[in-house]
């Protein structure tokens, strides 16, 4: 990487930034899920690693959360943007050099931020835990350079039309920049009380709704038509999806605070909008599944489609949960329980991870012109990820229902802890399977770069048979 930081833009091979982002994202995924497995072990076996506050759950939790959100998910998004945005505009990335610097500064900033969180230096607000100097760093050296590169590539495209994926990419980088700056403002302006709480959850909700969900969906809009060769089923439904994400996902932040003394009308408004999140979800899932017509055999045979369609299918339970769990009656029961933890993992480890995984698999093969080193290892990764995630999700959902019952019926806390203990062990098993799968993935992609079969000019990776 270092040699490209100071090279001329013309001397940097196309796709360099995307490849750096791709490998960075996998490494952060291994680190993030390793931390997740460690944290889960602490919840399952309370005596595991004692004696240092650095390894206490309170210190480690947010390091895990931020490693996966900023390291894995967002860097995989950046990777996808670096190669998909120019491809859809029949052009090159506006600036490979900016992309390489972006990737370098991203890794440096994230490492610094996670070190501070690990040391216990935080803003104290969930999902916006970074202290304000790191927030400014992220805005200036992570979000803005990425946004500029994506926008300029779209502006400099060689097509008249803009494909659906690039609407989401262009809007996603715009929305996340605004969300990040406004959402972190409580710390800059010393806001307290309800204003702080509302903005904290406005940020947390919109990072999901206006960054992770739309950008992950945008990747699926690329992967499925590209790999199957089918045209996207409907440009019109793409419009419905795009605008309903912007309209209905940006408004329901108050549904995270249904028991707080916010104005009730705001909660009513947010709660209706919360259910209406199902509108973009229905549009997205129906458009992608209908695009698969005649190509369902690829769901079994092709790694990228296997990952993508799994992610699309997981959007169904994700949005059914997300839409309804925030309503007054259900929120009363599940708020503050493991159910919510399960839901968050369904969104990040289920839905979006599977879609990003496909983008990274496809991107690294295409950009390095190397066929995947081993299909067997990719399948191992897929099944460990899927089964590990399923164990995690189901066990935490059950634990959440137990905690909800304990909360409502005022069961003594220690009895609830004992009742949910088996599910904490299951959570650790599931999380560790995901971690194991990711180590195999890193090896497989490293070997793809080193020893994957070369893809001849004019061919695409999915057109060639797997050799291993």
């Amino acid at each position, binding site marked *: 990487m270092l040699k490209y930081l100071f090279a001329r833009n013309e001397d940097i091979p196309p796709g360099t930034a995307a490849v750096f982002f791709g490998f960075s994202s996998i490494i952060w995924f291994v680190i993030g899920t390793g931390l997740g497995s460690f944290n889960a072990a602490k919840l399952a076996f309370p005596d595991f690693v004692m004696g240092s506050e650095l390894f206490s759950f309170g210190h480690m939790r947010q390091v895990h959360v931020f490693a996966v959100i900023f390291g894995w998910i967002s860097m995989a998004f950046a990777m996808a943007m670096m190669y*998909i945005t120019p*491809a*859809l*505009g*029949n052009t090159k990335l506006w600036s490979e050099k900016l992309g390489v610097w972006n990737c370098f500064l991203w890794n440096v900033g994230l490492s610094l931020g996670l070190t501070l969180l690990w040391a216990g230096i935080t803003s104290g607000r969930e999902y916006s835990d970074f202290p304000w100097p790191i927030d400014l760093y992220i805005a200036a050296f992570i979000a803005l350079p990425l946004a500029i590169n994506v926008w300029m590539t779209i502006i400099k495209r060689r*097509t*008249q*039309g803009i*494909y*659906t994926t690039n609407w989401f990419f262009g809007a996603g980088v715009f929305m996340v920049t605004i969300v990040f700056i406004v959402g972190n403002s409580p710390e800059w302006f010393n806001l307290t009380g309800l204003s702080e709480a509302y903005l904290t959850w406005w940020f947390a909700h919109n990072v999901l709704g206006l960054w992770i969900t739309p950008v992950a969906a945008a990747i699926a809009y*690329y992967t499925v*038509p*590209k790999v199957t060769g089918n*045209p*996207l*089923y*409907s*440009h*019109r*439904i*793409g*419009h*419905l999806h795009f*605008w*309903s994400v912007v*309209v*209905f996902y940006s*408004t329901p932040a108050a549904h995270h605070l*249904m028991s707080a*003394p916010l*104005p*009730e*009308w*705001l*909660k*009513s*408004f*947010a*709660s*209706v*909008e*919360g*259910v*209406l999140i*199902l*509108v973009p979800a*229905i*549009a997205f899932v*129906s458009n992608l599944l*209908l695009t698969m017509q005649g190509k369902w055999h690829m769901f079994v045979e092709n790694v990228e489609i296997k990952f993508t369609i799994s992610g699309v299918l997981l959007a169904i339970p994700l949005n059914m949960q997300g*839409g*309804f769990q925030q*309503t*007054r*009656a*259900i*929120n*009363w029961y599940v708020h503050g329980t493991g159910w919510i933890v399960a839901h968050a993992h369904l969104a990040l480890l289920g839905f979006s991870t599977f879609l990003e995984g496909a983008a990274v698999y496809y991107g690294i093969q295409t950009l390095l012109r190397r066929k995947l080193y081993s299909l067997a290892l990719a399948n191992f990764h897929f099944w460990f990820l899927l089964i590990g995630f399923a164990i995690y999700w189901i066990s935490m959902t059950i634990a959440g229902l137990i905690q909800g019952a304990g909360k409502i019926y005022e069961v003594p806390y220690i009895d609830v802890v004992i009742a949910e203990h088996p599910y904490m062990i299951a959570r650790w098993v599931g999380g560790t399977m995901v971690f194991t799968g990711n180590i195999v993935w890193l090896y497989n992609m490293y070997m793809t770069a080193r020893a994957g079969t070369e893809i001849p000019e004019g061919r695409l990776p999915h057109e060639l048979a797997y050799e291993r």
Partner: protein
Amino acid sequence: MAWKLDNPLYSMADEEQNNKAKHVWEGESLGGIAEDNNRLPQAVVWLLVLTVLTAFAITFPLWGKRPTAAIYADYIQLMDSPQVQAIADDKGKMEYIVKNAPVGPHKSEQDRHPLTMDDLRMIKDQVIELQRKNVDLEEYTVIGDKVVLANFEGPIKENGEVMRKQPWWDKGYTIDVFYVAYFCIAVLIVIKRLPHYSWQPDHSVAH
């Protein structure tokens, strides 16, 4: 950008605009990807309609309503009765109160928000004080050991005060109705500016 509004549910773009769109649609390969022009399947349209109706129906404040002081007024009245005083333990007292309280409009809420004799003792004086002031107990919420004015802003009452009773409808829903309506109109316009769905692009032109 010419508009044609004689048959807006068919198309809002004139022939020239549609031809231009069709030309670009068929003539460009967006990184090797093509797009069809299918309409939303009818079953999915009905699913979306059902979603919007459900969104309003399931979020009424009625579901998950917080306990108001009114639902415990009958319990408090029974607390000092000789029958309750004669019972030795708190559990027995509470069971007697729940069983013998008059069945009123708050029955289902009483079932959803059970409490102990200790809870009842903590709110007793506060509820009696409110009854003495002759205020509407439904405007007061019980939060732990406190009885507080509910955090609702309903319509203005005749005496000029804001109604604090939890409504089944509030201005949040009114905003939602307009919000959804504007969204539907905007998306309809965007989609009807495209060539009609009866036309499908020929992908052999650019691919």
